[in-house]
């Protein structure tokens, strides 16, 4: 699902996209490279960008939406401040990675690929992270958490919460 963007944002996005589209010719086979370029620029694919691309390639927006949502590499919402990547590679899958995923979903109340309302957390699944001995693995931002269990999910959330409070406090003090 893509997020509607407000008008100021929209104009900014439009400008960026027009710039970015100059590197491409208006042919169908450029659709995926264009989507990739958009994602690299914005970190996600804004709805407005899909519309612009549709007009540029003369493909219906719906068809582009269909193509874009087919691929796991594309996301349609800005990532969360803490992006939670649950490994569901072979080893992690066998060690119960799906239980960990369920726990994150339950705690954050979002689906895979979703972001919490306050934009603090984003949730996604990834393939092997490369440290299967630690399975099941979750990566939050740059930090890898091995041997995960549902209670560790709790711990990580608490840590983030405390860090945020700390941050707010110092922020308030400096003001």
């Amino acid at each position: 699902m893509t997020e509607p963007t407000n008008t100021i944002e929209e104009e900014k996005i439009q400008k960026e996209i027009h710039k970015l589209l100059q590197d491409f010719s208006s042919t169908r086979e450029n659709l995926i490279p264009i989507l990739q370029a958009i994602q690299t620029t914005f970190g996600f694919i804004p709805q407005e960008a899909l519309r612009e691309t549709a007009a540029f390639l003369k493909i219906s927006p719906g068809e582009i939406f269909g193509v874009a949502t087919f691929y796991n590499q594309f996301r349609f919402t800005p990532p969360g401040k803490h992006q939670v990547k649950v490994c569901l590679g072979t080893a992690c899958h066998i060690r119960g990675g799906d239980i960990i995923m369920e726990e994150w979903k339950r705690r954050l109340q979002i689906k895979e690929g979703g972001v919490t309302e306050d934009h603090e957390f984003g949730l996604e699944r990834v393939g092997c992270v490369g440290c299967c001995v630690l399975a099941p693995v979750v990566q939050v931002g740059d930090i890898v958490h091995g041997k995960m269990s549902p209670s560790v999910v709790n711990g990580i959330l608490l840590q983030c919460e405390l860090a945020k409070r700390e941050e707010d406090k110092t922020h308030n003090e400096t003001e």
Partner: protein
Amino acid sequence: MKAISLIIDNQKVSAQEGDILLWVALKNGFYIPNVCALKERAVPFAGCRLCFVEIEGYPEPVTACTETIREGMVVKTKTATVQKLQRAAFELILSTHHVNCGHCGKNKKCELQKIALHLKVRLRSKRFRLIPKNLPLDESHPLFTYDPDKCVLCGRCVWLCREQQKVGTLNFAYRGFEMLVTTFGDSLAGVANCTQCRKCVDACPVGALLFKEEQLIREEHNA
């Protein structure tokens, strides 16, 4: 065009050279389950896997919607092998279909009911684990409603909208179990380019796309 004859379920049938077996059979009163075939479509989608038949001399069953008839062809539409394949395909479709005929605007006109009767399979079949989509009914379009929980992904509407009408409002999106027929941004409300040709609704074999006037109150949606 040359007239040719073939045998379907021990009965002689004549048809035109180049005709597609599925349409010849249906026209002559031999029902073969199908949901994805469209006469207008030159290259069949062959996605529903319901229309299997056995043809003499062929090593295995084939889909009738992809088969061009030949002189003297001997076709069987109801062998045990055929029905086994059809039942499996049908029950897989049912495993993601929200069965709620009593409150469905398509009740008694639904292709799935017809197929269930033909194959003697219960609509509430428990053979495969049920994977309901549990998505909300979209009532935002002025003409029709769209219930993704009923959609069997036959692709008729998508093809008509995109390839025949050259509009491209309806499309397949997402992947695997999440795959959906949907519109840009997942909302019928934003469908600026819909020309209201009505083809999609007419072609829907189930109760996924329904004209608002056909729609019955469904108190039990997602119940």
